[in-house]
């Protein structure tokens, strides 16, 4: 929704999400400082973006006007909103039209979640993916016969609660594929709010300060009256406890082990060298024994090119074995170097995020929001 106020328009994160997926042309003027911009920005195939910090435009926006194409829709973006509005107003005063600012700025963009339906389950239920487009995180909800399970719940737990309500389902289980390092899990809080059971892989939960149910191979979980199984498959590599799920015999939820265009980095819990062979074994042996027809649903994407129709992030396992560079490294030594050397920078505040997910520290909502700023950077090929 765009709301016109005088000549300055407000664009919501939901509208921006739609623009990115529809590949509509948009010119973005990002007025944050250079280092924040270089660290993380809005991406889209039809988006042209430039960076001029707002503090370079305090004496006038002429420098920006020179670089903004006439007639194109212009969106001014900053960290929280204030500076973008300040600059956008001046651009409007200079006589430009079709000028917008992003409501809530990059903070809201980081939190925007969009549910998309992945497919039907054999016994009448459905599987949904929640796309956090700004940060590249993905969550899932299995809905069947009035019950729901949420996998890799994000911090914005009200979105999941609301969605389950709309589906007429009660959330019975929340599961985390592993102890996350790039974002704060909402799994525990959602479970507390809805009376659900929170599941974690015990090998990742050695230091957690709260009770949880152990995700272990063979302990299937049933959602709804119909038979929908979630089979934990122990698949170490990204963290020692990383677990994958097969939902309804059709979908393989790989967590941060296997992505569409890359594979998980093994260093975020500090043990890259130790876990390289586990990661290789999972990707090159364990997953290979599974049906190639399984639809892979990861916990992240790294590039907008990984977004498919309607924003869905999914691919057949067979196709990934053909196209994913991380699954096509023949030499063990090359593999070792790929996943341990020249890795992208670590996600913002990843150590504090891990501690939060263990229950060791309890930051305020604002602090949590701040900690999560930036891209997820969980894949070896994210730069």
């Amino acid at each position, binding site marked *: 929704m765009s709301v016109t106020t005088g000549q300055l328009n407000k664009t919501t994160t939901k509208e921006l999400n739609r623009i990115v997926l529809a590949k509509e042309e948009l010119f973005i003027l990002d007025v944050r400082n250079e*280092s924040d911009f270089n660290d993380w920005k809005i991406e889209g195939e039809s988006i042209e973006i430039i960076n001029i*910090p707002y503090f370079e435009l*305090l004496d006038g926006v002429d420098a920006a006007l020179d670089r903004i194409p006439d007639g194109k829709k212009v969106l001014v973006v*900053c960290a*929280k909103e204030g500076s973008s509005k300040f600059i956008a107003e001046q651009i409007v005063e200079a006589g430009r039209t079709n000028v917008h600012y992003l409501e809530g700025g990059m903070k809201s963009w980081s939190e925007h979640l969009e549910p998309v339906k992945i497919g039907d389950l054999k016994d009448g239920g459905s599987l949904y993916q929640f796309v956090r487009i700004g940060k590249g995180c993905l969550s899932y909800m299995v809905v069947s016969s009035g019950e729901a399970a949420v996998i890799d719940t994000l911090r914005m737990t009200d979105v999941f609660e609301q969605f389950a309500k709309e589906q007429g389902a009660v959330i019975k289980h929340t599961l985390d594929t592993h102890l996350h390092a790039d974002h704060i899990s909402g799994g525990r809080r959602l479970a507390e709010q809805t009376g659900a059971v929170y599941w974690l892989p015990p090998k990742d939960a050695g230091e957690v300060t709260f009770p949880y149910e152990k995700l272990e191979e063979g302990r299937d979980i049933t959602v709804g009256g119909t038979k929908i199984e979630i089979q934990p498959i122990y698949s170490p590599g990204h963290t020692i406890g990383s677990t994958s799920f097969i939902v309804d015999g059709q979908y393989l939820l790989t967590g941060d082990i296997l992505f569409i265009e890359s594979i998980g980095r093994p260093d975020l819990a500090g043990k890259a060298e130790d876990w390289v062979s586990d990661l290789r074994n999972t990707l090159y042996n364990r997953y290979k024994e599974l049906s190639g027809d399984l639809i892979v649903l990861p916990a992240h994407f790294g590039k907008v090119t990984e977004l498919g129709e309607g924003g869905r992030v999914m691919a057949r396992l067979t196709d990934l074995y053909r196209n994913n560079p991380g699954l096509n490294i023949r030499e063990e030594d090359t593999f070792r170097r790929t996943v341990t050397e020249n890795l992208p920078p670590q996600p913002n505040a990843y150590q504090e995020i891990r501690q939060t997910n263990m229950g060791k520290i309890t930051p305020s909502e604002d602090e949590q929001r701040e900690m999560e700023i930036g891209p997820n950077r969980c894949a070896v090929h994210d730069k």
Partner: protein
Amino acid sequence: MQADLVVDTKGLACPMPIVRAKKALDTLEVGQVMEVLSTDKGSVNDFQAWVKQTKHELIKHEEENGVYKFYVKKV
């Protein structure tokens, strides 16, 4: 540190801390120092980038109970 001018922007959000600081800086003589107080965490990176771009000197910055202090010398 003794500042020639104190600019209190506590409670103000972006872009106001830098807008106020810039106005204040324009009134200073070369060599004088201003102290800017801010409670906006986002201003830390912005201040450093702004001072660098304006070619003035950020003598130091510190945090005390959630208040960020920046000492800027006009060059």
